[in-house]
Each structure stands twice: as structure tokens, then as C-alpha cells.
């Protein structure tokens, strides 16, 4: 098993819930897609090209302020369960973690991590620079990313076109190469059945939504990732401002919806969140999806001040560590544990026992 403890704070600093509005907006991620000038994009690059890209990034990363105290994982060296661990932790994309390691000459795929910042190498694009911050923090996340972009772009020649901007393997990312997304919890809008309207509205203003794990993933536990759809024709600041403005509006709608619920159906809501808490506290078997939905209920209860003594940190931790690869790695150390649901229930009970300061 990889020692993910090597990563400074495990790449999990966003879990602490210290960021702005962290009970509704769990985390903010910004990424930039970049390619090395003169080298074929990853899907058409041969083993030598991929190795060259990795060498270039390696030297540039080590020479940057982000190099010190950082960690590198070579995907070819990792067992499938370890790749999954990185994916569940949102440190590597599904595309990267699915890279076939038996590819002749190696895939050259790697992840570099330094605190909340990192680079994926030989993903769909040669470089995917990213930052992940706690709460609603588009400004700080992008500021950090800009530094990394300047460092690496000063050492590696990036493919850039005077009209089309940064060139990417998929034209949907060309221009700025910027995709900013916030992971947001919207139980109020789901319960008041306003969510469809809000999500439809998003697509009309050039934003898009996805599930917990990005492209193609399902929506579980009322968690949505909202992000910009277009990347070309607007400046980085305009893209971030626009997303920020809409997210603030969605957060305001969510808060309104919660107030409506409290006003019109206080007993139903109180019962709902306490049932979720009770089930997490006492269940002996939990599927991942059920755990997500119950955690959503408890999170709502904490946000409405109905359930005291449970921290946002604890809820975030449960969200990450109840995922299959995390449970296997930390609880049983046997991948493919026969009864992962029972293990999940044991883990949830233990964490709530230790960290929930108040007992029902």
C-alpha cells in the first residue's frame, strides 16, 4: 500500500472546514490544462514523448517553490487499490487512475502534490495544474494556481496560440484551460423540489453541474459540483467572477429553502435529520450511497443548528473515509473485504462516538 501519509496533511487540508461557508460549500477546486509545445498530446504521444513530458515537469516542479516537501506518485508503480485511493481523495482524476500500467514503456502518468496544490502529468493533457481549498474560496485557490502556472510555464514551453489561447487535447478546454468548480451541498433545494429549476437555470448561464466525482458521476447525498462550462473568450477573472456570483446566488436560494422548511415543516425536518443521525449512530450495515444520504441529513441538521456537537470536520472526514478504497486501506487492510458495509457501519459509529460531543 502507498504511504499516503507522505503527502503533507494527506492532501486533505480542505477537510478541516475552515473555509468560508464550509458547511454548504465543502470545497473549491480550480484547474488549468496545459500542454508542452512541440510534443503530441498524451493520447497520441509515444512512450518516449510521455517520458520526456514527465522529465520536463519533474525538473520544473523541483525548481519551483512548490517542489520542497512535496510528494510524487508514479501511477505505473501503484496497485489498483492505491490508484483508487488517490481518486477517492480527489487528488487524481478517473482518467489518470485508469491509465493502463502495462502500456509498453510505461504511461508516464504521475501526480505531484504539495499541500493544497498539485499537478497531474500525462493525463488527457500533459499537465493538469490544480488547487483544492476548503469552503468557498475561488480567489485564494486561483491565486495559488497562478503562481504554480507561472513557475512551470517559465520553465516549460507551453502550447499557446495567439487566437485560441492555451491549446488542449479537447477543444472544450481551449483558451484559458481553466475549470473552476465548487462542491456544494443542496438538501434544502432538493427537499423543497426547487433543485431542477436551479440546475436548469445553471445551464442557461453557461455553468454545468456534476456529481461528487466529476464528469459522468452520479449525484449522491445532495452533493453537486458546479463549474464553468466555457473556457474561451473570457478572461480567467471573468470566468471566476461569473461562477462566484452564481454560486453565491445558489447558496442564497439554499438558505431560503432551508428557512422555508423550518417555517413550514419544523417537525418533519427535525425528525428527518435526527433519524439520519440515529441510523448512522446505530446501523450495523451501511452501503456507500446510504451513508452519503444519511450524512447529508446530519449535515443539514448541523447547518440548521438542530444537531449540536457534530463538527463540519467530522462530517467531511466521514464523507472521504467511508469510500470503498479508504475503508479497505484504513479499516480492514484487505481490499475487496467481503462485508464492506459492516466495516463502514463500524467505522461511522466509532468516529461519531469519538468526535460527536453530544449524545442523543
Amino acid at each position, binding site marked *: 500500500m502507498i504511504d499516503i501519509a507522505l503527502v503533507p496533511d494527506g492532501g486533505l487540508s480542505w477537510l478541516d472546514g475552515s473555509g468560508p461557508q464550509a458547511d454548504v460549500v465543502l470545497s473549491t477546486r480550480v484547474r488549468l490544462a496545459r*500542454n508542452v*509545445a*512541440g*510534443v*503530441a*498530446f498524451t*493520447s*497520441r504521444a509515444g512512450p518516449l514523448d510521455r517520458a520526456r513530458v514527465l522529465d520536463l515537469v519533474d525538473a520544473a516542479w523541483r525548481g519551483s517553490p512548490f517542489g520542497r516537501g512535496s510528494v510524487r506518485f508514479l501511477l505505473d508503480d501503484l496497485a489498483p487499490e492505491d490508484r483508487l485511493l488517490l481518486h477517492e481523495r480527489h487528488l487524481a482524476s478517473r*482518467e489518470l487512475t485508469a491509465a493502463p500500467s502495462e502500456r509498453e514503456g510505461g504511461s508516464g502518468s504521475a501526480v505531484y502534490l504539495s499541500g493544497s496544490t498539485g499537478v497531474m502529468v500525462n493525463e*488527457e493533457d500533459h499537465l493538469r495544474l490544480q488547487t483544492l481549498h476548503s469552503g468557498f474560496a475561488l480567489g485564494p485557490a486561483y491565486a495559488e494556481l497562478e503562481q504554480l502556472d507561472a513557475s512551470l*510555464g*517559465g*520553465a*516549460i*514551453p*507551453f*502550447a*499557446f*496560440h*495567439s*487566437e*485560441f*489561447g*492555451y*491549446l488542449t*487535447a*479537447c*477543444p*472544450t478546454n*481551449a*483558451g*484559458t484551460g*481553466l475549470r473552476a468548480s465548487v462542491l456544494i451541498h443542496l438538501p434544502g433545494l*432538493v427537499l423543497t*423540489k*426547487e*433543485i*431542477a*429549476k436551479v*440546475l436548469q437555470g445553471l445551464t442557461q448561464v453557461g455553468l454545468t453541474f456534476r*456529481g461528487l466525482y466529476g*464528469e*459522468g*458521476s*452520479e*449525484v449522491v447525498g445532495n452533493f453537486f459540483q458546479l463549474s464553468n462550462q*466555457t*473556457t*474561451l*473568450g*473570457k*478572461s*480567467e477573472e*471573468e470566468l471566476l467572477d461569473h461562477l462566484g456570483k452564481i454560486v453565491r446566488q445558489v447558496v442564497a436560494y439554499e438558505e431560503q429553502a432551508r428557512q422555508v422548511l423550518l417555517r413550514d415543516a419544523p417537525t418533519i425536518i427535525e425528525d428527518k435529520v435526527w433519524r439520519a443521525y440515529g441510523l448512522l449512530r446505530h446501523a450495523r450495515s451501511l452501503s456507500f450511497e446510504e451513508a452519503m444520504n444519511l450524512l447529508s441529513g446530519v449535515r443539514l441538521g448541523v447547518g440548521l443548528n438542530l444537531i449540536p456537537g457534530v463538527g463540519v470536520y467530522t462530517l467531511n472526514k466521514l464523507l472521504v473515509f467511508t469510500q470503498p478504497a479508504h475503508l479497505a486501506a484504513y479499516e480492514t487492510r484487505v481490499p475487496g473485504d467481503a462485508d464492506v458495509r459492516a466495516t463502514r457501519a463500524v467505522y461511522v459509529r466509532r468516529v461519531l462516538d469519538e468526535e460527536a460531543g453530544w449524545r442523543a
Partner: protein
Amino acid sequence: MTLCESCGEREAVVHLTQIVDNTITTLHLCERCAAEKGVETGAQVAKFPLGDFLASLGKSALAGGAAGEAAASCPGCGATLADFRQTGRLGCARCYDTFEGHLRDLLRRLHGNTQHEGERYGAPSAGPVGRLAELREQLGRAVGAENFELAAELRDAIRGIE
């Protein structure tokens, strides 16, 4: 392992979340049942985000129009428009020049715009020797194009470095 809700036999690999009349439902289906129901799987969507557009692009290209681009293969990587249509991915940065006409149209549809308004990138300078070679090349081009104003500027820059 979650079993397919339709056949109950195979592993559910497609998780379809639908919003109908303000209600969110999630269907868990195996690949075969999903295909039978005409569900576009996440993998397909991720792989062919531009599928329909690219398909139509291929047809119109073959029907005439920019026949040159349709038949061309990129001198940088050998990719053709057919490759792009199949994978949804370009082969290299030069593809943007090779298939410029088609891509400008596609970028406009995707982003509503084709002109990059974000940060301008200045590639790292290749050091004095590399820079000199680059300037001389530019000078040659400027003279060839009879752009003497630019040529004079370039000549001064070269003298400065020398």
C-alpha cells in the same frame, strides 16, 4: 456489487440520475440494459462529448466545403479529422492549424467565441543563442515579406544581443 435493476443479473455500471417533474431518481443499470434503453453512458459521454457535432461535421466536410481539411492529416502528429471525430481529442497543438477552419467553427459553438481573452503566455526564452537563431529566422521572414520596418527592429535586436 450493485446489481442491474433491469435484468438483476449483471453488475450495474451505469448510474443514471434523472430529474423528472422535480423528482430525482437514480437507475442502476448494467451496460447491456443501459444500451437497450438507449441510455448514453457516462463513459460514452466522457469519451465523445462532441459526438453529434463531430458526426455532422464529418458529413458536411465530406460533402464538399473544406474538403482540403477533411482529407488532410496533421503534419505534426498524423491525425485526421476522422480521428478527431472518433475520439473527440486532437492529436497535437498543430492540429489547431491543420483543421483551423473546422475548429474555429467548433470553438465558436462550444464557447460562443474564438478569441482568447485570458492571460497571454510568453514562452520561456531559449537563452541568448536560441533567441538569436529565432530572431534571425524572423528577420529572414520579414525581409522575404518586404516588411522592412519589422526587419529593422529585428536587426537592431540582433545587434543588441551580439
